[in-house]
Every structure is written in C-alpha cells, then in structure tokens.
C-alpha cells in the first residue's frame, strides 16, 4: 500500500516537474525579441521534445477527449477538452510553420529552407494565439497544480519514516 502511494507520488512529482519546465520553456521560447531568433529556434526543439513527453504522459486523458467533447459532460469538461484539442492543433501549426520559416537552426543542420515570408507571418500569427490558450490551459489546471505544489512543499517539511520506507 505504501509502495503504491509512493509510486503515485513519484508520478505526480515527475508530472509536476515536467509541467513546470515546459511552462518555463514556453515563456522563454516565446520571448523571441529578448532571446533572439537563434535561441528561440534551438529552445523550440527542446520544448517540442518535452511537449511530446507531456502528451504521452497525459495520453489517457487525451484518448477520452473526443468523447468528452461530444457527450453531455459538464461545461468545464467540455471547455477543457475543446481547449486541449485546439491547443494541440495550434501547437502543430505553429511548430510546422516555424520549421518552414527557420532561418538559423535548419540551415545550420544543412537542411535547405525556402525563404517564404508567408510562413514567418503565419508562424507569428499562430504563435500569438498560443499565448491566451496556454494561459487558459494553465488556469483550468490550476487547482491540480496548486494542490500538487502545496502537498510537495508539505512533504518536504514533514517526511515520516513510513513514507521514507516506501520510497526506498
């Protein structure tokens, strides 16, 4: 029993760490005027790999997504599911248009990219739409985020011997 609790706690901690790193990376990547185009592009690859891991971790939730949108669930569930679907599609569009508009990373890797202004304009527009969607996504998951952080902080203050045995 203690081992199960410990395992779920470890899972929760991994998810929390991943989400926090992903959030920080998103902010850093999106501040392109501050970091510069080169850093923006290289950071995007790190963000992309973590984004894939984030999706894999929440696969169970995502597999239930179409049903949640169609079936009569509560308004919050529907909003959450629709927003997540929109976020995923927009993220795909943003990443693809970003790759097609790449000026530093892909040429550095020896991959030729056509300098079409259409893709940089599209990338800019889609990326701007990502800001409010990510904000609302975090806002919707805020209760989980807050409770996980507070329980983690509590745990560091009072680690009981039982928990220690379960973790080892």
């Amino acid at each position, binding site marked *: 029993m203690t081992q199960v609790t410990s*395992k779920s706690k470890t899972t929760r901690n991994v998810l929390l760490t991943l989400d926090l790193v992903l959030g920080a990376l998103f902010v850093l990547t999106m501040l392109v005027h501050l970091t510069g185009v080169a850093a923006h592009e290289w950071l995007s690859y790190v963000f992309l790999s973590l984004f894939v891991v984030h*999706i894999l971790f929440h696969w*169970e*939730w995502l597999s239930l997504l179409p049903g949640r949108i169609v079936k009569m669930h509560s308004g919050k569930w529907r909003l959450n599911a629709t927003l997540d679907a929109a976020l995923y599609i927009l993220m795909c569009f943003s990443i693809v248009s970003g790759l097609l508009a790449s000026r530093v990373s892909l040429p550095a890797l020896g991959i030729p990219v056509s300098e*079409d202004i*259409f893709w940089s304009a599209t990338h800019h527009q889609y990326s701007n739409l990502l*800001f409010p969607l990510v*904000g*609302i996504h975090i*806002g919707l998951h805020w209760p989980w985020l807050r409770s996980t952080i507070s329980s983690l902080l509590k745990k560091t203050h009072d680690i009981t011997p039982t928990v220690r045995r379960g973790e080892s």
Partner: protein
Amino acid sequence: MSGLTMHWHRRIPVIILITFFVCVGFIRIENLPIAESVRLEATARQEAMQEREAPTKAAILGGSLLKLLVMMVLPGVITAQVPRVVNAISRRET
C-alpha cells in the same frame, strides 16, 4: 492507471499519424489564394518596420513582459478565478 505505467509503444505511432495528417493538411494552405494576400500584407509590414527606428532593450523587455502579462497571465488568472467567483455568488444566493 497513471500515464507513466501505460504502454508507450502504442501511443507514439498514433501521435505521429495524427500529427502527420494535421501537418500535411496545414502545409497545403500555402497554395490557397489567401496565402498571397498574407504574403503581401507581411511584406508591407516588414517594409514599414524597416523604416521605423530600432526599439531600445528596455522597450523590448517591457513590451515582451507586457505581452506575456496581458495575453497569457491575465486569461489564466481569469480562468482560474471564474469558478471561485461563481461558487461564491451561488453560496451567497443560497
């Protein structure tokens, strides 16, 4: 079951397939008539920006933080607070 204990090898092909079709569909917009108007608009905007003075570092920092605050933090805070406000109102009504 937690996400960590599920079979990874089953998920990856599904994600790749969905993403592939989404992206292939998206790339096709390059050939649509609307793409030409986007190109013209973007070129005009770029020319206008080149004529303008380059902003200072402080202006860039301020602008970026303001953008982050208004476009991401504010919608997030509003979303997180809406259920609380609704609950508080309904509690007061009862």
